[in-house]
């Protein structure tokens, strides 16, 4: 048996206790222990941004955070973006601007873009590209993603 531990955190606004292996990354715990599979694995070494989540409001690659590190933290994943009023402007803009093709990078882009707009509500195209350079997309050529983010900023 491997070494398990109980971790207490707030995930998407809900207090949650979960059992994690000491070796689990936050990404592994979210996906395989908690069942929140919206956060995606693209590389598992911090180079693609698909696993982006907010930890206490800060943008992190969840593959580079140990599950044990989120003890007491507030974690927001893609599943926590929409509100009772429905999709947030970023999500709506991604749909209207056709900013996704396969959609595997989309959760990471949405979370990273949310962090961008939280920090800088009116980014220039260059600022958006710079901020999102840590998120790889292989389908879109980024054009429609950047347009969607800039459109959401206007909303």
């Amino acid at each position, binding site marked *: *048996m*491997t070494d398990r531990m109980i971790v207490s955190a707030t995930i998407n606004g809900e207090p949650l206790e979960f059992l994690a*292996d000491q*070796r*689990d990354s936050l990404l*592994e715990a979210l*996906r*395989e222990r908690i*069942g*929140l*599979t*919206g*956060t*995606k*694995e*693209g*590389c*598992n*070494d911090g*180079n*693609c941004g*698909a696993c982006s989540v907010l930890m206490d409001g800060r943008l992190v690659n969840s593959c580079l955070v140990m599950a044990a590190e989120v003890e007491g933290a507030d974690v927001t*994943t*893609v*599943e926590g*973006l*929409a509100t009772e009023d429905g*999709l947030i402007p970023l*999500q709506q803009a991604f*749909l*209207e601007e*056709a900013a*996704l*093709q*396969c*959609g*595997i*990078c*989309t*959760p990471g882009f*949405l979370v990273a873009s949310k962090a961008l707009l939280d920090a800088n509500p009116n980014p220039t*195209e260059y600022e*958006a*590209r*710079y901020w*999102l*350079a840590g*998120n*790889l*997309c*292989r*389908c*879109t*050529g*980024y*054009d*429609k*993603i*950047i*347009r969607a983010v800039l459109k959401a900023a206007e909303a």
Partner: protein
Amino acid sequence: MVATDKPAYRVIGSRPVRPDGADKVTGRARYGADVLLPGMLYGRVLRSPHAHARIVRIDTSKAEALDGVRAVASWDDLPPKNWDELPNLGEGAAETRWMARNVFASDKALYKGHAIAAVCATDPHIAEDALGLIEVEYEVLPPLLDVREAMDPNAPLLHDDLYTTDLSGGGTSDEPTNIGKHLEFRSGDIEAGFEEADIVVDREFETSMAHQGYLEPHNGTAMWSEDGELTVWNSSQGPFVVREQLHMLLDLPLSKVKVVPMEIGGGFGGKIPVYMEPMAAILSKKTGRPVKMIMTRQEVLEATGPTSGTWVRAKIGATNDGRIVAAEIELAFEAGAFPGSPFSAGALCALGPYDIENQRVEGWDVCVNKPKVAAYRAPGAPATAFAVESVLDELAELLERDPIDLRLQNAAREGTRLSDGTPLPVVGNIEVMERVQGSEHYRSELQGENRGRGVAMGYWRNGGMETSAHAAINQDGTINLVVGTVDIGGLRATHSMQLAEALGLEYDDIRPQVVDTSAVGRSSVTGGSRSTFAAGWAMHELAQDLRTQLEARAAQIWGVERDEVSYGDDAVVRGPEAEDGSERSVSFKELAGQLYGSGGMIQARADVSPTTVGPAYAGHVVDVEVDPETGKVDILRYTAVQDVGKAIHPSYVEGQLQGGALQGIGMALTEEYFYDDDGVMRNSSLLDYRMPTALDTPMIDAVLVEVANPGHPYGVRGVGEVPIVPPLAAITNAIHAATGVRMQKLPASPRAVLNELLSEET
């Protein structure tokens, strides 16, 4: 052919939100790696650290003894194979024997990362621990890494049972070799053609192996039930093709293999072959439990199928007035460890944009100790277009001609024969060239030091293949549409739009669903730029069938003759006037509500395999700036022009052009398989395998030219692949314009460009 001159469409050409959109922006969409089943085990793979080695001994006893480990599998667990079976994978066939030996190494490991054994355990970390407990004894052999060295008759052999097959009718070689296939296209008189030429440019080009780079690693979850039924959940470009491979590799009847297509995180051709799916199946059979396997990114890069590294020689001759009179192309493509490179497609596409009377194209498919290549977006064409379009740029410069003018003078058109002798149908090659030439981008002045502009063309043949679908009318006038072709970039939307158009309904009236292999007829892969094209034919057939059935039902309800009733494009069914002079008409929605109780509900089925494919042409313009200090190339402006036939959903068509262009930019500037002398890839992470980021590109202007394909109900041509063909040469031609240097080996990384700049100076 059906009419393509409809003045306007109601639904086609609009930009609705995709049916799977909400799920994909909320994290609810379920991809292959998201499968979680009760009692699920986790599998991992032990891979060869050597590029070429004989496997002397595998001892798994220590791994099997580890607490939590449930089973181990290797080559011996695969059932005996029927080596002669040839599955149709949609984008190139693969012989079963090579496919099996790629799933698990048999007597030899043939590339770094070749699978040796798989293990499953109750926890992913335990499975990983177990890999370190498997003992393998190797006899290391020297790796063969260079495509032309591997062609040498005295080169060591990867396989003692590989013989060269000559696709040009030359039979099979007598002796084993590293060359899987050979072909030659000849037309006209090549010697006379070069004699007629006033000017001849003859250059050699090389490209590195490059990966599709889909963000989602390969995955597969298998459950082999006690009653012998195997269910596999995974992300692939075609669940039926996965089913066929499992059927052959595991010797199971097709009816007993059910493949459930999960959402797929990119494929670009690379998610057609199976890798871990058969391993997971064997491990499930051994344990009676579902087994999930996911590749690491390193495994994706080292052990799935990138596209070939290539060597291409292009020799082209023209007269002083710009007429191209002869072209000779030679190409050798790395197949990786097993034969099957896209060399024949590369050969066919090399001269696709041009009408050249005298030509000779010869190619070789060559095994080396690298991963077995798979399809990658217009497989083979980017490398040969890189060579041809670079030489044409040089010819235009020497002849002092505008590069588009020279191409227009020699442009292929309807009736022009391709290198293999087949004549072109209606194509938009000339229209694309003219649109490039007339574009604001091309006509604008480029100012500034170290800046240059390049152009290049690309051709891709596109595909048809099988698509099956059925549609059931609901009593409220909506339709549930079931399809077997997976949706990677908006295909559900383009299915719905074409069916709505054909029935006179609204987009939102149709709800599409992609189903598993037990629920619809065999459908081929989403690939080959075929899916929206074939979908249009399937939706057209469904609509004709539904219209006919609805007409018959209305006739029955009204008590009139069947041929007195017709379904109009406004979705109203009309019959003859009633005896009291009143009009007999019923809307689709009203009639749908009357189906129940008047003979039952109505559904239709379509199984199509259209061959009236419309080839695709693209022309790209790019402005670059080259840093003379570092050799780094920045893209300043990019325009991608393409004949798309008819854009069903223009946003998704533009997205194909933009995404294809950026993958081509990656091939041109940064992406390469960097091997050391031992055949070990030294950049097997996404930090070091450098795919373009949002910061590496400007907006990519997508210009859609619509020359309708007369072989399609709505004029559609496939659009997905050809946009990756022009970027390589467009960029190196721009680098030449900026610096005077011609990059003949890709990628044109800062190091490579700087080396050329420095050697130019000395």
